[in-house]
């Protein structure tokens, strides 16, 4: 093993795991002193083209409350055909099918390179994937047309046996029956009346007269043929296409000064109720397309009077958002129901104003669904993002999985405190559950209804070993992640990842521990904690907490002379961390200024589910500079990088900004790129476009693409992100020739660092 860098990279590639610490402090006390908890980012379904799934069931530890999966870390007695569970030390006989194993004939799960292994298990009948479109019809004609086309296009992307359903809503909610010939049938619900799941099923005629009493779960899902609302694509393709093309705008008149009445709440509850009644515990995707806020019925976010604007952060802070709590509670209840049944909910919200994502976000956050926010359905941002939902992997299968449950097992010195990500607790209180909760805690199992290869959860652990009961030298702690899910090809699969790290005594081996610090992962892990807190706490409190953590960390690991800020030094493994924190503080995840509640929700939604790389980009956007002076290079995210003769490409994950410096912009305006003799200029202009294209191709959701120049109004996207090292306050002190001043009162990184140093070295702290 070479450097920690390489080790970390290798682990991530193989297991999709990044720990904050790669050496674990051996006692609870020491662990708390490290400030950043032992925690990891785990990507359960990380794409592993090199990992073929095995076609048998995993072997489980026989202890009732353990059930860990046989893994390379287990001690195996080949002669006795016995293996010892490395979590509970239970000795288990191998099942009969393993009779032939020996040192030279080992099953895959015992080989070290298979610390992550995927099993295909045969359980129950395979049910096809289910896609239930929930479509808002209160749209402008142009938008609706675009949406129609996107939906029709999506039909061709679905596997032929997938079941589709269509619910449309406006003032009323219509559940369309797809199997009928000659007449288009739909069931209509009032948009204002809350209905129980049972009522919904009764009204849709889904109640089977007899099956009530029988408790037998096995026959749970209604056979596809009997559900008129969810039909195989290949059967109803034509019908549905016609239906979509005849889809009309909500016909109810919208009086002057009113918003259209939009029954999003009821529509979602019917979608959830429908699936609940027909396909519980089966992977299904509810896709909500909405063009505005819910304006009536349960879940309404704003009244239909245009003169009352939708809630802003200001209103919320003043406790002036009338519908906020009620609506949020309503959608949470829905989301939990959907999650219990393994169904995920996507929200595609396209409107210029807010659409109520703040209230509805939990639907996606708790079920692992996507949220896409755009200005209009008639934009490539939406169209391509939507299309990308159905993108296929190297095997030609959808990059989506359903109904996942992720379980965490730990060795006895470690307990799990919680998880942060698109999941809900399954309330499984096993032996390895910590009493201290961080994120969604109190359980060792979480449900993740919708998973993609990039879905990443943050898991937080607690070292419970007491200080006075040292772990033997060379001891290792292990964590096993067992993720069961329904693959997009409808197979049930189990992916097991088992990782181990060495214990280290923090007093004697603090240097080692420090060097095992993964500052990128830690930044993201701490950021997730911050974002998680921000959901329930006031912004300033979160920032204060974050600052305190940072200061404590610097105090712990910084080298300095007391009360001498200039003497402060951080080792290389921590050097970037304060900068991440600086940008995090300024990020839309923690700052609501200039963002609507919906935007904040949207940003946070993506932040708590993307993998480490993407998350880092979100925290600290990447800035590339293109010039005649050399190849494109990454530059500091600083106002000093904004130079007249450069083209900048900034990637914030959500936005992709191409910024032409003043001179370049003038040249471009003068049309030099069209003159043959300035071919190189043309190439220079083209280079960032190509790079941007590459990013656009790969990212989901597709970022907003912005092409701007010096002085352009859209340049604000760039200016708001860079470190304001030059502002109108210090402009003249810094001289004219470099960089561009930012008109802001925000502190710059330099000021931030100065303060940090001062506080870190302060003996008063």
């Amino acid at each position, binding site marked *: 093993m070479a450097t920690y860098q390489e080790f970390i990279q290798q682990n991530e590639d193989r297991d999709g795991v990044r720990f904050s610490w790669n050496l674990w402090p051996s006692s609870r006390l020491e662990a708390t002193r490290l400030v950043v908890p032992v925690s990891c980012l785990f990507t359960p379904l990380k794409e592993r083209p090199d990992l073929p799934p095995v076609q048998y069931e995993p072997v489980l530890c026989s202890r009732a409350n353990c059930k860990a999966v046989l893994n390379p870390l287990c001690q195996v007695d080949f002669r006795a055909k016995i293996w010892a569970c490395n979590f509970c030390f239970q000795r288990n006989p191998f099942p009969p099918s393993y009779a032939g194993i020996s040192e030279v004939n080992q099953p895959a799960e015992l080989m070290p390179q298979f610390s992550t292994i995927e099993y295909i298990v045969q359980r129950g009948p395979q049910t096809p994937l289910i896609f239930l479109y929930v479509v808002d019809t209160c749209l402008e004609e142009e938008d609706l047309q675009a949406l129609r086309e996107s939906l029709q296009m999506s039909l061709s992307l679905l596997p032929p046996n997938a079941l589709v359903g269509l619910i449309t809503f406006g003032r*009323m909610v219509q559940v369309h029956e797809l199997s009928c010939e000659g007449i288009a049938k*739909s069931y*209509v619900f009032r948009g204002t009346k809350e209905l129980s799941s049972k009522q919904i099923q009764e009204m849709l005629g889904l109640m089977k007269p007899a099956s009530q009493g029988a408790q037998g779960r096995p026959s749970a899902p209604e056979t596809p043929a009997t559900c008129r609302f969810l039909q195989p694509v290949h059967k109803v393709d034509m019908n549905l296409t016609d239906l979509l093309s005849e889809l009309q705008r909500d016909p109810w008149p919208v009086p002057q000064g009113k918003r259209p009445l939009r029954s999003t709440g009821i529509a979602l509850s019917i979608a959830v109720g429908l699936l609940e009644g027909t396909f519980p515990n089966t992977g299904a995707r509810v896709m909500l397309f909405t063009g505005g806020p819910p304006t009536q019925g349960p879940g309404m976010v704003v009244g239909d009077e245009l003169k009352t604007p939708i809630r802003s952060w200001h209103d919320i802070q003043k406790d002036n958002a009338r519908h906020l709590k009620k609506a949020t509670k309503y959608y949470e209840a829905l989301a939990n129901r959907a999650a219990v049944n393994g169904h995920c909910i996507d929200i595609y919200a396209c409107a210029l104003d807010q659409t109520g994502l703040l209230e509805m976000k939990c639907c996606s956050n708790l079920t692992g669904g996507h949220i896409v926010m755009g200005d209009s359905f008639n934009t490539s941002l939406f169209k391509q993002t939507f299309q990308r939902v159905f993108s296929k992997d190297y095997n030609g299968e959808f990059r989506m999985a359903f109904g996942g449950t992720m379980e965490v097992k730990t060795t006895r010195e470690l307990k799990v405190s919680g998880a942060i990500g698109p999941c809900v607790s399954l309330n499984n209180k096993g032996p390895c559950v910590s009493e201290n909760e961080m994120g969604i805690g109190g359980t060792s199992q979480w449900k993740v209804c919708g998973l993609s290869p990039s879905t990443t959860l943050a898991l937080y652990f607690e070292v419970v070993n007491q200080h006075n009961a040292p772990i033997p030298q060379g001891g290792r702690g292990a964590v096993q992640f067992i993720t069961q899910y329904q693959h997009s090809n409808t197979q049930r699969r189990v992916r097991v990842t088992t990782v181990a790290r060495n214990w280290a005594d923090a007093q004697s081996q603090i240097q080692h521990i420090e060097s095992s610090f993964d500052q990128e992962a830690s930044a993201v892990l701490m950021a997730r904690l911050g974002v998680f807190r921000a959901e329930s706490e006031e912004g300033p409190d979160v920032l204060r907490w974050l600052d305190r953590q940072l200061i404590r960390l610097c105090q712990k690991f910084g080298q300095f002379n007391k009360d001498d800020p200039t003497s402060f030094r951080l080792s290389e493994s921590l050097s970037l961390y304060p900068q991440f924190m600086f940008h995090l503080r300024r990020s839309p995840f923690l700052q609501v200024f200039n963002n609507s509640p919906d935007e904040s929700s949207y940003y946070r939604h993506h932040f708590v589910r993307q993998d480490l790389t993407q998350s880092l980009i979100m925290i600290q956007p990447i800035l590339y500079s293109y010039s005649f002076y050399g190849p494109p290079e990454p530059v500091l995210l600083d106002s000093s990088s904004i130079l007249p003769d450069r083209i900048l490409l900034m990637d914030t994950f959500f936005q992709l900004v191409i910024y032409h410096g003043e001179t370049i912009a003038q040249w471009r305006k003068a049309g030099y790129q069209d003159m043959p003799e300035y071919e190189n200029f043309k190439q220079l202009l083209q280079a960032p476009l190509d790079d941007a294209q590459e990013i656009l191709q790969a990212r989901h959701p597709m970022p907003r693409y912005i092409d701007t120049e010096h002085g352009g109004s859209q340049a604000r996207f760039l200016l708001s992100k860079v470190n304001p090292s030059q502002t109108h306050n210090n402009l003249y002190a810094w001289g004219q020739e470099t960089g561009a001043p930012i008109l802001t009162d925000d502190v710059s990184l330099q000021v931030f660092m100065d303060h940090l140093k001062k506080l870190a070295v302060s003996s008063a702290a």
Partner: protein
Amino acid sequence: MSQQGYVATPPYTQTQPGIGGYPAGFGAPPSQPLYGHYGPPPQSYPSGQIGVLKSPATLATAVPTAPSPAQYSPNGLQNGAPTQRLPPPMSSPSVPQHGQPPSAMSPSPASAVPAPPPAQQLTNQLSGMQISGYGHTPLQGPQSPPPNPAAPPLFHPSPPNMGHLPPMSPGASSPMMTTPPPIGGPGTHPGPPPFGGGFQQPPGPAGPQGFPGQPGPYGGHMPGPQPAFPGGLPSGPAQMAGPPQKKLDPDSIPSTTQVIEDDQTKRGGQIYATNLRGQVPPLVTTDFVVQDQGNASPRYMRCTTYYFPCTADLAKQCKVPLASIIRPFAAVPKEETPLYLVNHGETGPIRCNRCKAYMCPFMQFTDGGRGYQCHFCNCVNEVPAFYFQHLDHTGRRMDLHERPELSLGSYEFTATLEYCKNKKLPNPPAFIFMIDVSYANIKSGLVRLLCEELKTLLDRLPREEGAEGTGIRVGFVTYNKILHFYNVKSGLTQPQMMVVSDVAETFLPLLDGFLVNFQESRSVIHNLLDQIPDMFSDTSESETVFAPVIQAGVEALKAAECSGKLFIFHSAMPTAEAPGKLKNRDDRKLINTDKEKTLFQPLKGVYEQLVQDCVSIGCCVDLFLFPSQYVDVATMGSVCLHTGGSIYKYNNFQVSVDGDHFLSDLRRDVEKPIGFDAIMRVRTSTGFRPTDFYGAMYMNNTTDVQMAAVDSDKAIVVEFKHDDTLTEETGALIQCALLYTSVGGQRRLRIHNLSLNCSSQLADLYKSCETDALINFFAKSAYRAMVNQPLKAVREILVSQTARMLACYRKHCASPSAVSQLILPDAMKVLPVYMNSLLKSPALVSSTDLSTDDRALQRMTVTSMGVEDTQVLFYPRLIPLLNMEAFGEGLPAAVRCSEERLSEGGLFLLENGRHLFLWLGQACSPELIQNLFNVPSFAHIGPDVKSLPELDNPQSKKLWSIIESIRQQRCHSLKLVIVKQKDQQEVLFRQHLVEDKGLHGGASYMDFLCFVHREIRQLLS
């Protein structure tokens, strides 16, 4: 006198005159033969005769006899004879004319020995009833019957004065008329003479006699009545058969058929000009043409009496209800002018400033045309400048005849925004078809039948006069325990169905495309109608909802901002879990107890609210029921009843049996003239005011009658009470203003004006009464009362009121006579038979054999009926079909509704406006059976024969043409039921023979008369 008590032979006597009808009867017999020759004579008879028929008969006799002289004259007068005073003068003049009659009479007299009685009133005692013995038994009258030949007449309706008019022609001098009661009019007409008279008149006891003698044809009819002699009669050419028989003859009691026939004879085929105040119109059964000359046609408004008493005391004394039956949308025959539409421009119709009465012929222009006095409230108003017109030398406006509102009794105004809901012009109304597609309706084939029919029916939606297409939009809903709405927008390639399962709070799931223009969406609608029967063909759903269906309709209309009508085709009691769920409350144990009324009380709550919703939006509900058992019509129908809708019920519906019947009901219902979202206000001149209203309507306050819709069949009864005294000079004016939305979506005001006379003499009132209108009123008031009071009490009130009215007449208007005589005012002489029929009507009879639903249904349908409908309902037409070849054009004359009139060898049609029976006597000639049924004999006709084949022979054709012409006269389709004598089915038929003892209780006509007479005597003593 010679006669026995019962016989009121000599009607002449005082009372005499009046009843033209009767007389006719009398006259008839004798005259008939003569008729031909003497047209006139008959007339005389009639009139003369006075009241009661018998008397007439007697008349004849009378003449000869001593009494005659006195009476005579009256006779001559004919009706005129109104009592006492007036007559004399009049009579004399008339006499001349009558002269003839006398002659006619004379012959008869001869025969008619029985001299009637100089005694005045006829007397019959009811004891006479024994009469039942009829003919043969000679009387056992209480007194020893002298050998009277003639059967003693029973009653005499004493014709009040009409007599005077007798002067022949209707045209008669108007002046006279005025004084004399309008009735005179009729008198004059007595046209009876002409043949018609012949038959009908039979009434007179004499009749019988006469018959024999009569010419075949006529005779036929006449005789018919008499049970005994059927055979003979027909043939009898002669008139007065010889000597009267002695016995109490059923024919001696006033006969409705006779009255009808007399009126037809007298006034049939004539023009009835409405230029006179308080003019009594011809009977509803008479064919006449109305010429509007300032008063509303009797088709629109009929009154119980055309002479209002001047004071409240008088009104109270006589007990005769003062009411007007208004049928604002009545259909008028082609030969009458439709209503003119008047547009007064932006200011809207000109109205009196104080009482808001609309400009009408009763406004008196003054001050050279600059002002006008409203005769309703006497306020003097200024004439708006644009409306100014000079007056002529008589003080009438020069443009009188150019302006309908100044010269006509009925016309329409174009309403302005002021008269519209929310000050917005209305949209054209909509028709929504709501079809129950539960198992029962699918299985019976109804749904398929209906859908097929709608495809063509929708092309015939009512349209505005002169409009090219209809403005009415249509919509479709099917339902069982959930509702299915259909989007049939014209652009769609296929219809869209929208299911609403949330019946707890029904709503309209779509806006655009639900209500469409049929022409534009024809193909989509056809597509839909093709699919509906198949879509539900395998349904097993048997539960239905009801209130949510109506609610859905209301929501639809509300959303479309229009009024309209729901056509609901429903199978069974709504038992599914939903608002308005019903349970069986048909508790047979309640029948005949004080709680029986609860069976007819609609459930409150949901249904009450529904009614209010419907009315406020202008949503009329028509209900077609296809039940196989109890459905609680009382509750379900209540919505229809209060929204101006109709209820149709087809028990155990089978397409093969009831299909045509149902379809023709449906067609009529869809096509009939109708107005929506109507508010009616009745204004009167000072001294009296409307106090009570009956009909298919809803009232929020005491003056405005709200009707979600009002069609040509619906009538509203308005009852008036005095609040001051009326004077004979000014009379009583009534203006009915109906604000409504036309089928084309125009807001209009329909105005009907009627002027009545006032008198401080009760005699005037009695002679101008109209029995048919009275019965209409009594039926409605009784049917309303029956939900609040025990049925027994309701029946008692009816009887006692009848007795009081008659007793009052006897006391104040008839000349003194033996108490034992029953004297009836001429205009009311058949009131008892109608009243008895009403008492025996299913709704009022407490019998466990009758279905509660049917009773409730009758209660509701009668509530909105016009006079024409109640007349035939309470006295069905029984038409003998003995010699079909012999009939000319038109219908054979009806005979009295009694089993006595049936003959084993005959064929009879009976219709009451709802049902049509063809009764086959056991002894029908095989030849006839062959011709009509295409089977060799009576025995070959199956017991459950359902239909009558249409065969190519004169008899069959004739029968069919008779059936068709009957059907055309009625606003409901008549389902033909074939009844074989002695067959089980005969019970159904027999219950319509209203002169007989009721099958489920209720007295025979004769018994009832006796009873009433006893009551009267009690009252008088």
